[in-house]
Structures are given as C-alpha cells and as structure tokens.
C-alpha cells in the first residue's frame, strides 16, 4: 500500500529541465537511495515526491493514488531535512508533536506517539530542551523522530547525514539502517556519497542530468554497471577506464569494444615482465591496510591500483595483471557490452 510509482516524471524551472523523464517503481518497504553528482536532480526528485516541488509533467503515485497535485501534508510522507529544520522556538517535545497538533490529533495520543518515538530514538531525556541545546547527532535524531510520529507511509531523507562529522555519520548510518529494519516502511534517501548508498540501499538509483543512469541493487551496480558513468561513480577508488587499444593486454572484448574498465582493486602488481599492462609508479599512497598506486602506463594513461601494503618506490617499473572476469567492456558511447 505504500509503494511508489514514477512515470515519465519531468520538472522544469523556467527554461531549465532539471528532471527529464524519470520512471521508477518502489515497492512497499523498500529502501531506495538516489545518488548522483551535485546538480543531477536527485534532491529535486525527492522534493517532487514530497510535494515541495510541483510536477511539471508525468505521473506520481503513492500507493494507488495519483498525488501530482496533492499538498505535501496529505501525501502520507514525512521528510528529514539536511539541516534538520527543527523549529528554534519550540522544544524537542513540541517539535516532534507539532505536526500532530496541526493535524488536530488528541493531546493524549500526541503524547503517546511522541513518547514512543522518543523511546525508539533514545531521546527521552532531551524532550524539554531546545534545538540549540542539542548536538548535531541529537538534532538529527529529533528530526527523524518528528518524521516517525506522523506514521507516514513513506520516509524521505534529503542528505540527512551530510552535516555530521565522519564518525557520527557512520554511526547514524547504522541507526537509520536499524530503523528501517524495525519499522519496515518505504524509505527514499538522497545522498551524494556512494558509500552511504551502497551500505543502506536495497535499491540504488543513479541519476545524472535529470535522467536515471541505472537502477539496481548495490551489488548489481558494482558488478554490472550499465555504462561508464555508473561504473566510475560506484566504487572507490573509481574504476580505471582505458581505451581498448591500450588495454589490449587485458584481453579483447566483444566487437564494438572501445573502452575497457577495470577496478583498482581487481588489478594486482606483478614483475614488469609478467604484466598484462606495464608502467611506472608515479605516486604510492600508503593507507595502512593497502596502498593506492598511481601508475603511468607505457601507453600514456594513468591507472589506479590497490596493492597490498608492501613498499613500492616511485619510478619503479611494474606490471599489472587483472582478475579473471572483472573486466568491463564499453562501446564508444560508454554503454556496457555483454561479456561472452
């Protein structure tokens, strides 16, 4: 009942097309992450679902209802904002209960729901504080609590963790994952951080320039990217893309292969004589568990390799060998070609 359907959805600001035809099906209880570089339209798409932006054309359904022109509060969605958007003049309790009050939910019921959400998010001791008296992580939890108390069908998260420091972000990420497991609601989550996307999502939607580049599970996107953009966007450090001619040593792809992609973690360093590719080490970035090597290939390109942490001096001549089955072939338009 809280599935979500987008059909040829478009958004235009003045003369600028921000969303240029998006089709998407989200089933009940799914955790979907919109990811893409800044300006790709992911936030706009989320705001269209919330009703904060109107739909220029296309069809937007929540459950079995077309909600294109339904006001935000009547869509059965709740939103967690990047800046938390807590009302500064209200306490935590009042912030969480505000929407219920506006919707004229009885006082007792309101209190019960706020207490329930506060318990879930361990906010009981903070209920009478003002937002300015809370830490970033606590504010984030209040913002989530405010969304919970309305019993929405769908939760919308607009880059909710980007204002937190790195450590807290990892922690909150797991809290959100736990929350989803617990509540089982449909959740849509916008982020530019592909690690967040990979760890949280049942389904990732990669957007660029108002189009969907690919939809799939994290594993599908990692293992079978549809095109060069997705291949490079998902995974860190990003995939090496080499002209087919330079990468001939790695093997030849199906006909029409113009570019060969290989992830840095799927290359290993071998003596230069045994290498499928040969080059010179430019820089070696030691990160503890491994080293990231920047290698100038003899064919002219630069290539990244994740190597074990053995020391390799700059200027050393090295050979590279690819794992079997981890080579991606793309045509000249950047579309992935089926492997034989």
């Amino acid at each position, binding site marked *: 009942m809280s599935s979500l359907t987008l059909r040829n959805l478009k958004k235009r600001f003045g003369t600028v097309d921000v969303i240029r035809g998006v089709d998407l099906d989200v089933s009940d209880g799914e955790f979907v992450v919109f990811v893409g570089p800044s300006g790709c339209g992911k936030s706009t798409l989320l705001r269209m679902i919330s009703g904060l932006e109107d739909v220029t054309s296309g069809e937007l359904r929540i459950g079995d209802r077309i909600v294109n022109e339904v006001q935000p509060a009547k869509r059965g969605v709740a939103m967690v904002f990047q800046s938390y958007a807590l009302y500064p003049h209200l306490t935590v309790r009042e912030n969480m209960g505000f929407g219920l009050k*506006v919707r004229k939910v009885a006082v007792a019921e309101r209190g019960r729901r706020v207490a329930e959400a506060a318990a879930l998010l361990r906010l009981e001791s903070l209920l009478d504080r003002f937002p300015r008296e809370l830490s970033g992580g606590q504010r984030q939890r209040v913002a989530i609590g405010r969304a919970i108390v309305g019993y929405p069908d769908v939760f919308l998260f607009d880059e909710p963790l980007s204002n937190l420091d790195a450590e807290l972000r990892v922690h909150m990420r797991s809290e959100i994952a736990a929350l989803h497991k617990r509540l089982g609601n449909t959740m849509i989550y916008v982020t530019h951080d592909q690690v967040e996307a990979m760890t949280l999502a049942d389904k990732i939607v990669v957007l660029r320039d108002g189009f969907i580049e690919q939809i799939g599970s994290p594993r599908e996107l990692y293992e079978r990217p549809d095109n060069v953009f997705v291949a490079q966007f998902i995974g860190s450090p990003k995939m090496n893309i080499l002209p087919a001619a330079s990468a001939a040593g790695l093997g030849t792809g199906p006909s029409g292969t113009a570019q060969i992609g290989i992830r840095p973690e799927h290359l290993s360093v071998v003596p230069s004589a045994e290498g499928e590719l040969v080059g010179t080490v430019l820089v070696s970035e030691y990160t503890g568990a491994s080293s990231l090597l920047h290698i100038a290939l003899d064919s002219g390109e630069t290539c990244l390799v994740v190597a074990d942490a053995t020391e390799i001096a700059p200027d050393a001549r090295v050979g590279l060998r690819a794992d079997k089955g981890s080579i991606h072939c793309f045509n000249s338009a950047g579309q992935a070609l089926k492997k034989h």
Partner: protein
Amino acid sequence: MTNLLSQPRLKVIKQICWTLSLGVVAIPFVFPFLWMISAGLKGPSEIFGQPSLIPTELRWSNYLEVFSYQPFARQYFNSLYIAVAVTVLTLFISSLAGYALARLRFAGAALVGLFLVSALMVPEEVTIIPNFFLIRWLGLSDTHWPLILLPVFGPQGIVGTFLMRQYFLALPKELEEAGKMDGLSRLGVWWRIALPMSRPALAAVAIITFLNSWNLFLEPLIFISSLEKFTLPLALSNFTDPYGSPLWHLQLAATTLAVGPILIVYLIAQRQIIESFALSGVKG
C-alpha cells in the same frame, strides 16, 4: 626613559582631547532638549530674561495650563491610539506582502516589487492633493481614518514590506518546508513559523512605523480640523495667542510632554532603535 613614560600619557591626553571635541560637536544636539525642558518650567516673563538653564522658580503650573488651554489629554491619546493602530496594521499587512515577495513563486512577483519600490522615491506631497479629495469623497475628512490609512498603505508600509521581505529571505527555507510537511497551510507557515522567527525585523518595523505615525504632521494638518481630533504635532503648533504668536512657556511645556516619553524609551532601548533605523536604511 621619558619616552617610555610619556607614551601611555600621550594616549590618555589624546583620548581626552578627542572626547572633548566630540562633546563640543554634541552641544547643538543636546542643548535644544535641555532648553526645552528648562523653558517649559519658566514663566512668560522669565523666558525672555537673561538666559539661564536653571529657572529661578519652577513653574509646574505650566503643565496644568497646557491641559486647560486645549484638550491636550485627548490629543495625546489620539496620537497614541493612532500610532498603535498604524503599527499593528502595518506589521500585519507588510509582513504578509513581504512574505509573498520573499517566498512565493508567482508570475509578476518581480514587477510588483519594482512597482512598490518606485513608490518610495515619490514624495507624498505629489499625491497629497488627490488623496485629499479621495478622503473627502469617502466622507472621512476630519476623522482619524486618513491618518491611519495613508501611512499604512503609503511609503511607510512599503518600507515595512521590504524590510520584512529581506528578513524572510534570510530565514532558512527548510524550516518552512518542514511546516508544510507538518500540515500547515501557507497562512499557518507564515503565522506560526516565519513570524515567530522574525521578531527582530518585526520590532524594527514596529519602531520606525510607530515613530513615523507619532511624528506625522502634513496629513493631520490637511485632514483634521476639530481641536479634539488633533494629534500631538498639530496640537503643539497650536499654542498661540489670539494674534498667532507662540505662547512659548506652554508650547515648550507641551513639547516636553510630547517628546519626553519617546526620549525616555529611546534612552532605554537606544541600541535596538538605532539598529531598526539602520536596517530600514540598508534596504534601499
């Protein structure tokens, strides 16, 4: 050695000279107020005697006479209630319009804004004649309505509108969106989220609007003819003998009564009041 000693002393001397010269410049700013208070307590004869800031005898009876000479209490009240009415109405109307200009996307927003701004450049003397006929046609001559309507919808209201707009623009938009998600209507977002967060701007608009109404002169002069409907500025100019010469002791006592409370409030809240004017000026 002497140099080391004289360095801080030089600084102190410099500081004193600096303060003294500013003090001299300040004389024409302060002195009229002092003289106003002093002369308001003198008798008619002493006023033109040897000038002295301290009256030989404090004639408090001037202050009683002020109220018997014309219905000064009534006039005082008129000014007060008109200023309050203008302030409340202006806050309401200009914050509504300011909110629309700041937040709502609608065709013609820029044009409306431009129209309103251009009105600020037109002196009210330009439109006062047709407004006089308009008010008369509406049957509102010699009532307080024009003293309320013209400022609310005139330049003062527009200044308020833009001041509010500027402030609304700087508020975080997500808060209002959260309000929308929480189920507030547009009016609800304005009233329960935008306004509570805009207290400084509302205070600024209130201050300049109240003072402007309190000090308004041209409109009362043109629209009001009955003595008991006068506002303070008009009443003050009316302390004259039958030949039109000012009755200084009464006029200055009345002026003290009119200016005094404003000055006291100003001295208490000078920081806030000065900032309000700074805000309203920056908008241009």
